[in-house]
């Protein structure tokens, strides 16, 4: 704990200028928002209800801690858990498929020749474009499938790049030390790949949140995406904005967890 406090103090000492400017820009934004909202209200604009003041949005957000959400009449953590679960499932499935595929396509020329056209055709299609059909075909799993698609390609491409970047002299060294093919794979290629995989995972997480919110906004009754849609349908605009803030926070948190995990991992592996 002492270490942590020390680290925190050092962080402030090194970064207080950046923190100060960051605070300034956020405050300026909030003030501008507040003034605009106040202006709409004072001119009796029809638009006023669409732009609630930041304080009103904050009240809506804080309200979730004391009462169930008024629009969906469940506690907000039900939505958060629903979205996290989908992201997690899509994520695990994407890892399970993308890693072996990337390994194959990175190491076997034939696998690359077979897979590349498919990858190049489907990769540029935004995962969101699949929402209408996936929600029909996969039902409750539709959102998971969208997340899967969004996360799949960044991980696949990074694993493939990683396999191709393995320093051949490391494989030579392992072989002269007595490694067979399997051992070269588990003891050289896999450890070499881990940083590449982490890059894919971090990129994938960002895409994942985009996908999940979009999918939930189209269909379903739970999840933060649904929270946005239902709040807006019912005219609960403060709650709609609060849900947007919630997504921002959740996305920062998951990316933060991934970055922390990566730092731990690379520290443990001696890469940093």
């Amino acid at each position, binding site marked *: 704990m002492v270490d942590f406090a020390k680290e925190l103090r050092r962080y402030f000492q090194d970064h207080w200028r950046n923190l100060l400017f960051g605070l300034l820009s956020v405050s300026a934004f909030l003030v501008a928002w507040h003034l605009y909202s106040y202006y709409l209200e004072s001119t009796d604009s029809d638009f006023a209800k669409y732009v609630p003041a930041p304080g009103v949005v904050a009240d809506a957000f804080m309200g979730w801690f004391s009462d169930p959400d008024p629009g969906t009449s469940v506690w907000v953590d039900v939505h958060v858990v629903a979205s996290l679960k989908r992201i997690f499932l899509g994520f695990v499935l994407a890892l399970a498929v993308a890693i072996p595929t990337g390994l194959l396509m990175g190491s076997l020329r034939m696998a690359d020749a077979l897979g590349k056209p498919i990858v190049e055709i489907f990769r540029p299609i935004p995962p969101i474009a699949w929402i209408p059909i996936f929600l029909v075909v996969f039902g409750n799993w539709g959102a998971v499938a969208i997340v899967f698609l969004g996360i799949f390609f960044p991980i696949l491409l990074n694993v493939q790049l990683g396999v191709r970047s393995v320093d051949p002299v490391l494989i*030579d060294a392992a072989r002269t*030390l007595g490694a067979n093919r399997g051992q070269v794979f588990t003891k050289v290629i896999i450890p*070499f790949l881990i940083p590449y995989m982490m890059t894919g995972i971090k990129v994938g997480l960002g895409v994942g949140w985009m996908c999940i919110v979009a999918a939930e906004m189209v269909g379903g009754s739970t999840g933060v995406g649904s929270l946005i849609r239902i709040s807006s349908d019912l005219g609960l605009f403060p709650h709609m904005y609060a849900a947007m803030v919630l997504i921002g926070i959740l996305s920062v948190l998951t990316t933060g967890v991934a970055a922390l995990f990566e730092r731990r991992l690379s520290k443990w592996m001696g890469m940093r």
Partner: protein
Amino acid sequence: MTIDIRGLGKVFPKGKKTVIAIDGFDLQVGEGEFVCLLGPSGCGKTTVLRIVAGLEEKSGGTVEVHGKAVVGAGPERGMVFQEFALFPWRTARRNIEFGLELKSVPEIERRRISSKLIDLVGLQGFEDAHPRELSGGMKQRVGIARALANEPAVLLMDEPFGALDAQTRNLMQKELLRIWSATKKTVLFVTHSVDEAVFLADRIVVMTARPGKVREIIPVGLPRPRDRTSGEFIAVRGKVLAELDEEFEKARAKELSPD
């Protein structure tokens, strides 16, 4: 005979043509002997070493180590690389233990062996450092210890000090001789430095320009530790240099008029 190479040949495809890299290379290395392979760049000295290591296929001839034909790489032939080739995610100790791990040597035994090697190569205090924290010289100490951990019959060294600065290089040459006399390994050492070869070797194999074969084998015959400034040292150096210069000229002539 520890290493027995007869009529070794190596042909590379190069576009539609084939390049004869090595042709009729013969060499016998005795138990505990220190032999340097020296030659102009592109003469195939590294290829010879890689074939003995089993990292590359030969096109003709025979290669035997302790009477057994070489088929593929194996732990009985340890190799040390110019690029160090350490596993960056492993500490010095765990790099050294790599070969033992592959053989499923129990952890206590691994520890004991790696500790002994850490002492031998002078890595005390750096056991838990990762390669990126080590200087070039320290890295190569790990490389040597890692190759020795398998107790190989021969140690194959591919310009192991080529990436080091001159001072470190001289120090590492002395260190290698110390380690060599302590372990009594048979060493086949590739270098392009005449000075290094004369300082280290029992015998120096001067190779011809491509296609590479043995031009001459020069026994050094000086007692160790050798003094680089002594008259005898300079005399041997001069002799090796004269042989090598002719091959350099041939290699250069070939470069200027490609077939």
